[in-house]
C-alpha cells in the first residue's frame, strides 16, 4: 500500500510542471558555471574556485541591484564579481606559478568570508527578475514553462552555450586553448603563449560563473546570504567531468544533477523523505561511476591540472 502511494507520488512529481521549473532553475545555475569551467578545463587548468566565483557573482549582483535598482546592472556587476576572482586565480596560478589548488581553495574560503562580511555591513537588497514568456513555445506541456517561461537572464544561456562551443571549436583562439590543454610543450614551441591562454580561459570561467551566480540570485533568492551557492560550484565541476569534457555531455550532467535535486525537493514537498544523503552524494557518485566505466574511452585534456613552466617538464 505504502509503495503504491509512493509510486503515485513519484508520478505526481514527474507530471507536475513545478518539478521541471525548479529543475531548469538549478540546471541553469550549473550550466552557467559549468560552461565556463569546461572552457577552463579544456585549456588544462582545473579551476576549483568556481564556487567562489559563483558566490562572488551573486553578491556583486545583489550589490548592483542595490545601487542601480536594475537587474541588468546587477547581472553585469555579477559578471565583474566573478571576473575579479578569476583574475586573482589566473594571475596567481598561471603567471606567478603558485599552486592552482592552493589558490582555488583559498579563494573559496576568502570569498565566503568576504561576502559574508560585506553582506552584514552593506546588506544589499535585490529583487526577482521579471519573467518573459516566449509565445507558443511556452504552451508546450510539462517542459514549456520550464524552458521558455523563465526570468529573462535565463535566456542568456541559449546564447552563451553555443557561443562557448563556437569559441572553443571554431576559432583560432579555441584551437590554441585546446592545444594548451593537451600538450603545452608543443603548443609553446609553436608559438602559443600557454599560460596566457589558460589565464584567458579562467577569465571566461569567472565571467560566466559570475553571471550564473547573479542569475541565481535574481531568479530564486532575491536576497543574498553567504550560503546560497552551497557547493553547487563543485557539482558544476562534477558535471564537466561527467560530461567527459565535451560541452553537450557537460550540459547533460547539469540537467541530470539538477533534475535529481529538483525531484528530491518536490518529493519532500509531498511529504516523502528520500534518503537525502544518498541523493546529495548522487552527482559525485554518478560522476565517479561514469569516469570508472568510461575512463578508457573518454579522457581528460592530457595536461589537465599540470602547471606549465617553460623549460620544465
Amino acid at each position, binding site marked *: 500500500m505504502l509503495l503504491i502511494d509512493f509510486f503515485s507520488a513519484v508520478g505526481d512529481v514527474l507530471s507536475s510542471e513545478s518539478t521541471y521549473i525548479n529543475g531548469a532553475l538549478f540546471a541553469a545555475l550549473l550550466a552557467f558555471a559549468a560552461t565556463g569551467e569546461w572552457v577552463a578545463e579544456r585549456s588544462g587548468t*582545473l579551476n576549483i574556485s568556481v564556487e567562489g566565483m559563483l558566490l562572488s557573482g551573486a553578491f556583486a549582483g545583489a550589490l548592483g541591484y542595490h545601487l542601480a535598482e536594475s537587474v541588468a546592472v546587477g547581472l553585469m556587476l555579477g559578471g565583474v564579481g566573478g571576473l575579479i576572482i578569476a583574475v586573482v586565480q589566473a594571475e596567481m596560478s598561471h603567471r606567478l606559478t603558485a599552486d592552482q589548488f592552493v589558490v582555488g581553495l583559498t579563494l573559496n574560503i*576568502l570569498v565566503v568570508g568576504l561576502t559574508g*562580511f560585506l553582506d552584514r555591513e552593506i546588506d544589499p537588497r535585490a529583487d526577482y527578475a521579471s519573467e518573459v514568456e516566449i509565445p507558443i513555445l511556452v504552451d508546450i506541456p510539462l517542459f514549456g514553462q520550464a524552458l521558455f517561461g523563465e526570468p529573462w537572464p535565463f535566456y542568456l544561456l541559449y546564447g552563451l552555450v553555443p557561443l562557448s562551443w563556437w569559441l572553443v571549436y571554431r576559432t583560432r583562439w579555441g584551437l590554441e586553448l585546446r592545444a594548451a590543454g593537451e600538450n603545452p610543450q608543443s603548443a609553446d614551441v609553436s608559438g602559443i603563449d600557454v599560460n596566457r591562454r589558460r589565464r584567458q580561459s579562467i577569465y571566461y570561467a569567472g565571467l560566466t560563473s559570475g553571471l550564473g551566480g547573479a542569475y541565481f540570485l535574481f531568479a530564486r533568492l532575491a536576497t543574498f546570504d553567504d550560503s546560497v551557492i552551497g557547493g553547487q560550484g563543485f557539482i558544476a565541476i562534477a558535471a564537466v567531468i561527467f560530461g567527459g569534457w565535451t560541452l553537450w555531455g557537460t550540459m547533460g550532467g547539469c540537467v541530470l544533477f539538477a533534475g535529481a535535486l529538483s525531484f528530491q525537493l518536490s518529493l519532500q514537498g509531498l511529504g516523502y523523505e528520500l534518503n537525502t544523503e544518498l541523493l546529495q552524494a548522487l552527482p559525485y557518485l554518478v560522476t*565517479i561511476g561514469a569516469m*570508472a566505466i568510461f*575512463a578508457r574511452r573518454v579522457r581528460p585534456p592530457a595536461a589537465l591540472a599540470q602547471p606549465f613552466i617553460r623549460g620544465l617538464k
Partner: protein
Amino acid sequence: MYALSVVVALAISSVIVEATGGDWWPVLKALVDGSIKAPGRWGETLGIAAPLLLVALGTVISAKAGLINIGQEGQLLMGAAFAVFFSFRIGGPGPLNVVLLLLFGALGGAVWASAAGLLRYWRGVPEVLSTLLLVFVAVQAVGYGLKWQWLLLADEASRGNRNLVSEQLTKDNRIPRPDIFGNEFPITVYVALALALAVAYVLARTVWGFRLRMLGHNPRAAQRSGVSSTTYGATALAIGGAFAGLAGAAMFAGGGFSFGNYRLVPGFSDFIGWTGLLVALMARERALPAVVAAFVFAMLRTGAGFVNSTGVESRITDVVQGLLVLALLVPPAVVFLRDRRRARAAATERV
C-alpha cells in the same frame, strides 16, 4: 620579502575593516593575543597545528610519488568516523583502546584514499578528480552514519536533545592533555612532530623513499628500473590517506573543545583537511617546513577566535586568513621566476 607581502595583505585587510567603519589595530592585536600571547592560547594553537601537520605529512608522501591528492578533508572525516565506530561499537581492552582507535582512524583514511587509488590504477581515473569528488561523498556518508544508531549515532540517553551526534568519548579513553606552563595540548603534538621527522628521514634516506621520489620525478625511468607505479603509487596514496585519517581520529580523541568536544558531529572536519593540504603545498611538499607552516596556519585559526571580542564582524578573519595565504604564496613564486630569469640570462651570455 615574506614580511613585505604579509604587510601588504594586512594593509588590504585593514582597508576593508576601516572602509566599513571598523577599527583595525585592535583586530590585529586580537589575532596575536588569541594565537600566542593570552594565557593558554599557544597550547590551543599547538592542538590545532598537530592535525594540520599530520594531514600535511600524508600529502607530502603522496605528492612525492607524483600524485595530486586533494581529498584530505574526506579522508580525515572518514578516519574520524572509523575511530568513532571502533570506540563505541567494537571497543578494545582498556588502555589499548586509544591506540587502537587511532589505528582505526588511520585505516579509515587509508580505505577512503585507496578507493581513489583503485580507480586510478584499475580504471585510469585521474586521482585529482576522484579524491576531490570523494570528499563530498564522505561528507554525505558520515551524515548518513550519524542517523543510525548501529553506525555512529549516540543512544537516546547520551544524545540529549541533539540530533546527529555521536556518543562522547569517556574520560579514560581520551588522549592525555598534560598541562605545561598553563598551556594544555594533546600529546599527539609530539606524535605529529616525531612523524614529521620520520617522514623526512624515510623520504630522504631510505630505498623506499628514493623509489617513491623517482616515481614522482620520472615515472618512465622508475618503471624501467623496477619500481612498479601501481604498487608504489597506490601505497603512497593509501599512506597519505592514513595520515589524514589519523589526524581525524586524533581530533576526535584529543581535540577538546576545538573539535566537537570528543563527539563526532556534522561539519566535524571543519576545513582541517583543506587547510592541511594548503600547509603541505605552502611547505612546497617537504616534511620539515610543513611543521612551521602548520603552526602558522593554526595561529591564524586560534587568533581568529579572539577577533569577535573587538566588535568587528568575525567573518573578517576568514578574509585575513585568505589574504595571508595568498600573500605567503607570492614571494617563493617571485623568487623562483627571478632565479630562472637570471639563469637564462647567464646561459645566453655563455653562448
